[in-house]
């Protein structure tokens, strides 16, 4: 269940309920791992906004997930700097080791992978985010060590 107190806290920050929609969707996504139709309906009820409004916003932004995600979300950058330093090789590695396709989830539900546009870490490329943790200076060995820390 969505923590109604947290929703109310969000609502208080904005002059209109509609303003609270983006953070409320983030809250729901954090709670459930993704935005299921039920999660969106819950946000709709909590904010007293039509379901269609919630769905429209949730489907507009790329960072809302509308398919179930694994326990940990890997977001890896493949833009220019990261690409030059071998990010694409890392993506292939994740596929070999965990069977992870970009946009997909490993069979054991442990990891989901998203290919990101630049995450602003070009000086320490290649880089990724795991959940909300920042991991720069990746190579094949390092990425495996890091990911083994996420069970």
């Amino acid at each position, binding site marked *: 269940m969505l923590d109604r107190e947290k929703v109310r806290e969000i609502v208080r920050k904005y002059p209109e309920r509609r303003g609270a929609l983006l953070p409320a969707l983030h809250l729901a996504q954090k709670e459930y791992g993704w935005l299921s139709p039920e999660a*969106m309906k819950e946000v*709709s009820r909590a904010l007293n906004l*039509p379901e*269609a409004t919630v*769905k429209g916003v949730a489907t*507009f932004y790329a960072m809302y997930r509308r398919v179930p995600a694994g326990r940990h979300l890997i977001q890896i950058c493949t833009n220019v700097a990261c690409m030059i330093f071998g990010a694409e090789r890392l993506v292939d590695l994740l596929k070999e080791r965990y069977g992870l396709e970009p946009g997909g989830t490993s069979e054991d539900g442990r990891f989901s992978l998203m290919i990101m546009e630049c995450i602003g870490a070009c000086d320490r490329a290649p880089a990724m985010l795991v959940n909300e943790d920042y991991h720069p200076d990746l190579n094949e060995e390092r990425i495996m060590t890091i990911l083994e820390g996420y069970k």
Partner: protein
Amino acid sequence: MIELTIDGKLIQAEKGSTILQIAKANNIKIPHLCWDRRLKPYGGCRLCLVEVEGQRKLLAACSTPAENGMVIKTDTPVLRKARKTVLELLLVHHPLDCPICDKAGECDLQDLAYQYGPSEGRFYAERKHDPEATSPLIERNPNRCILCGRCVRVCWEHQGVGAINLIGRGFNTKISPAFEETLDCEFCGQCVDACPVGALGTKPYKYRARAWFLESTDTICPYCSVGCTLTLDLREGKILRVRGMDGVGVNEGDLCGKGRFGFDFIYSEGRLTKPLLRKNGEFQEVDWEEALYYIAERLRDIKETHGPEKIGAIGSARTTLEDDIMLARFFREVLGSDNIDSSARLGYAWALKGMEDTLGIKSNPVSLNSPIGKEVVLVLESDITSTHPIFGLKFLEAMHEGTEVIVVDPRKTKLARRGNRWLRNRPGTITPFLYGITHLAMKEGVHLKKDITAEGLDELEDGLREYTPGKVSELTGIDEDLFREVALRFINAESRLLTLTLGAAENQKGLETIHAAANLLMLLGEGPEALQIPSDYSNTYGAWLAGLRPLSGGKDLYGMLYTPGSLKALYVMGEDPLVTMPDAGTIEENLKDLELLIVQDIRLSETGKLAHVVLPASSWAEKEGSFINSQGIRQMLPKVVSTTGDSIADWKIFRNIARVMGHDLGTVEFSQLKEEAGKIVPEEGTRKWRFIPPEWEGLARTTEEYPILMVTGNIMQHSGSLSVMSKSLSHVLSDAFVQISPEDAGRFRIGDGEFIEITSPKGTVYIKARVSDEIPEGMLFVPLHFAHARVNLLTEVSRDGKALLTPVRIGPRKGNGGSPAG
């Protein structure tokens, strides 16, 4: 004021207007697809681009505010090229299925493509192949959609519903309900009128006619008292659809579902085509001559044997003013009886009485735009967006323009959901709520500052002493601090409005509510304009003004329908008391005792089934006439279609009976009657104020045996007992239901969709339950439209006009399943 030049023409305009608004006002045509007068500028379609001197880019006229000294061009080679390209891009994905599209011939996209070209596109892409989505009344063809978003914005911004949205992004965007489910909304159809292409259409009109074969005529809606102008589109003499025309009529083009889809009641299979005469207990079709001679003879007999005071008439809230005048004249001049009344007696008459008692006025027409610009508006236990949908929209519009709309209602109505604040009170406690505000206003001494004095002030002050915020909170169930805050907000506002409905179908408000509302407003120094109470139906107010009420001591509706033995003969025109009026059991007994019951209607009503003779009347579209709406405006109805069967206009029936009885009412032609009707004016009052001391009789009487309060009323898709004849409206809803709170459903073990048994001291009925959080614990809401539900067997009639909620007990239907007849 600013001054600017458009296409070489020097124009003065209000500061803050957009270029498009100014161009429109000056009859300069700029093309557009996504713009809608009612909505915030969107700037999505890029067709309204204009050149502004000194600006390097082309600007969208719809979203660019005009500035002083601007020099604007709306039609140049550069603009033509830009528009052509925009259209070219729109047509990449738009299917060219105009030959089978209902919009062809009146399609904005088609017209613009014709005007600007191109004849061939440079781009090719896969067109969309989404399946068409259907629903009870609205069809969506997603492939034709150009994603201008007008439907989405009309639905949310203007209607306050939000049933659909743009789902997804980029090429994959599509307009749909949240989860691609079947559309389940109000079915107002405003999205259909807003759609500039053929992506949205109405189901009843699909594949019925090419637009260029249609003939259009404007008329007035037969449902509620707003009196919207409907644009009827006919082919070969048959109405195929109804549209609202931007800017036309009191509704300025807005329509609700009843107005848009409900017209087809005139084509109902249940229409009467010939007079029916009961012979040996059975109805037989007879010709007019036989029916009229029978009626003339029986009325003459009864008049001679029992006297004219034993003959009465119940008129209609939906027949025309001209019909009403003739009924009244027939009764007064030919029969010599003043026993005449209408359903207004049960609702609007009490509102009028309440306002006369207090404000000293005999009429108080509403003003549709009254909520706009007010600081605070209170909506009191009234579902205005359902009963008077287009008036209801004005409250949303006002809210968008900064008015604080506060709704006090046990039901979670649309305005409760969309308004700025919603206070959930116990059903039937609006009166003490108003007493509480008045009490606080007196404590604040508002009336002293404004020097308000009128008869009854001291008594009012005495009577209100007990209605402290604490007491009001206890009675209404509203939090004390919240009540105090809202009350003070209302009292201290610069401008304010109170609104409520007092319909014949409603039982939670009454005369005492009107007194309480008027007391409060007078104390704050407000006049009648601050109290907005719309009349019920299309001609409720007209019937009242035309004299469908006792004027010289005759019997009123209570005396005729609820007093055993008061009449020997009753003439019912266009009303179905057995369905629409409370305590139907008593009415039925009294009707059965009559020596003569004449029912004149467009179909065989429940009341008609008890009649000795039934006369077929022409419907609203089949005769000339006029309605007086809740604003007091008389609006003319043209005759649009030919009459059904042998039916004739109500007024002609009275003219004919009078002739058969040897009386000439002096009226031969409609034109004479029209002139007579034109002379009707509302009565003035003394305008002398008087305060009425509190008279509320305490919380409605629930007992251990009857622990739940049943509230009755009208719902969004229906209106009285007329709308159930409409096939279209019945597609949305044709079955009776009762709304029950999740708490009570759990407590009484009632599942959604199950038949439940409702028992009041008057009787028992069985209705399907709808479990809904729109209703609080301890309350039921039941619409009265459906004859088969017989809800009015449970209700009581309030002879003094006071609110009379019905205490009931409920339970699962014994032996669930099987027929509901019990």
